[in-house]
């Protein structure tokens, strides 16, 4: 819904805003990009702030599961690769929070509020990053399939109507492709390795299966009671629905997973030649609701890391605040 400015006292104002709205819709329907200082409807701005801050904090929280394995990476080559990857993720987080900050300006909020809202649970981070890691093979599955899934959802927004986000995504996606290649190399090494390595890989894959299905979100808004899919599509921020993205993920990865000899935990997974769609067992969407509300297996523990970082470096921020404003 587009909200008229409260207290707008003349017909002229209202019609001007209506005109602005018409003009705005015309621009995005023509494929033009909206820039930070352009006029935009409030619900467009609000939806973008939500989306981009969530994406930003998810990059930061998303570095944490792999960080668990970074100091343990088993060779110099793997150490360099996983260090580069987690550094990239942090960089994406920073880039996105900068984009969100520009949008937040008219509301008088900054990154400080975003980081605080993350700690209080007001801003959610992506459901996949609430899960446990158990072995080095989890780091492999995350880099290959979680990053693979992220490429699919982000490619869906590569032509987003908001220019600064769209340009950030171009860069992020290019780096994610390297991450997925790194993940594929890790997976290949394990798949072609010893019996123990193959077992580690299979266990990790089975462990992440439900999380990979949940990655794309529920097929219908009924599951969580709300969904912003429609507004995102209307405003040309994204193109496809959650289910279409999940199907694209199956199309791309199921053949590869099978080629590696991995067993798929869902015995009901089948491809329907007529509809060209995959049918699969639904994960427990009640669990999903728990997870996104920070009641996942590692939600609290990972947020606790951010909280400690925030508390322990308060003196540093106070010190720097004397010279410059750092949140």
């Amino acid at each position, binding site marked *: 819904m587009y909200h008229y400015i409260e207290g707008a006292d003349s017909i002229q104002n209202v019609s001007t805003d209506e005109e602005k709205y018409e003009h705005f819709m015309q621009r995005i329907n023509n494929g033009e990009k909206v820039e930070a200082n352009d006029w935009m409807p409030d619900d467009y701005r609000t939806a973008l702030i939500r989306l981009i801050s969530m994406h930003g904090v998810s990059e930061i929280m998303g*570095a944490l599961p792999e960080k668990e394995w970074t100091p343990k990476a088993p060779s110099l080559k793997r150490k*360099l690769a996983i260090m580069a990857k987690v*550094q990239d993720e*942090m960089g994406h987080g920073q880039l996105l929070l900068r984009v969100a900050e520009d949008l937040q300006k008219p509301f008088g909020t900054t990154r400080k509020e975003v980081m605080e809202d993350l700690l209080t649970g007001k801003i959610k981070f992506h459901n996949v990053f609430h899960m446990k890691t158990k072995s080095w093979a989890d780091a492999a599955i995350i880099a290959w399939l979680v990053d693979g899934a992220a490429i699919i959802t982000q490619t869906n927004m590569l032509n987003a109507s908001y220019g600064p986000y769209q340009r950030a995504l171009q860069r992020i996606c290019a780096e994610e492709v390297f991450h997925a290649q790194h993940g594929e190399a890790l997976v290949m090494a394990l798949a072609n390795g*010893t019996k*123990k*390595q193959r077992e580690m890989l299979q266990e990790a894959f089975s462990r992440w299966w439900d999380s990979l299905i949940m990655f794309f979100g529920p097929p219908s808004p009924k599951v969580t009671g709300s969904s912003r899919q429609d507004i995102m599509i209307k405003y040309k921020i994204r193109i496809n629905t959650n289910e279409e993205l999940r199907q694209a993920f199956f199309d791309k990865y199921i053949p590869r997973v099978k080629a590696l000899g991995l067993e798929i935990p869902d015995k009901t997974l089948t491809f329907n030649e007529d509809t060209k769609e995959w049918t699969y067992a639904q994960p427990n969407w009640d669990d999903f609701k728990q997870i996104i509300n920070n009641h996942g297996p590692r939600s609290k523990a990972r947020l606790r890391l951010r909280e400690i970082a925030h508390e322990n470096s308060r*003196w540093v921020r*106070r010190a720097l605040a004397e*010279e410059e404003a750092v949140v």
Partner: protein
Amino acid sequence: MNKSMETAEVAKQNRAYAEALAELLYQFADDDFIISFRGSEWLGLAPFIEEDVAFSSITQNTMGHATMFFQLLEELGEGDADALAHARKVDERRSSVYLEKMNGDGHYIEEPDYDWALAVVRNFLYETMKRVKLQAAMKSTYQPLANMATKIIMEQTYHLAHWKLWMEQLLGATDEAKEKLLSRLDEAWEEFGDALSLGPKASDIAKFGILIEEETFKQYWLEEVKKTLPAKYATIPKKSLGNGREGMHGEDLQQAINIFTEVYQIDEQAVW
């Protein structure tokens, strides 16, 4: 004038030379490896996101440098670079004990009570030392080391600049920040000493022109840090934690080894 050694094959023909060279390369490799390990534990815990990006970039570059030094050791016939990094026992390692110290209480995954003042002081003192060492190594008689030092110093210049800026900013900021840094500096003046030691082969290292005299090296370092630190830090730090250059290490190194070999030791022959 010492003769330049163009390759590992030539260097290996002089046993005393090769031994002194290996000793120095282990110091370079082990220092970079352990400080990069400690840096990797910090990811996601830095004071703000920009710092996380910068710190993890430095940490990654530094692991790259460690890798290059391990490869020089491999060329010298010391063994496979990955095995050198992972499989050596505590007393075979040559890193400075001060660099091995834990970042604070807690574990990097659970309740890491890390101290940014230690991170700033340690990295500043270390990067200054590394720069002086690399500058000397650029003129080493061992040509592969001279070439590598020339390459590494291009990146390392930014690492030092980064930590120097932190040091200057925090020393010039609130009383609270200044006190925290001074307390860590006092501690470092008790413990940093072995980082400045060139180890048991120091005299051969200098004699063969692989690096400079240990005493000169220490003085160069002191001159450099004095430019940034308060006047009271005008002496060479002590070695109260022991001397890692002689294989004497504390429990913190074993703690680190247990973590960084957790996956490697599952199967040392496997390809990961």
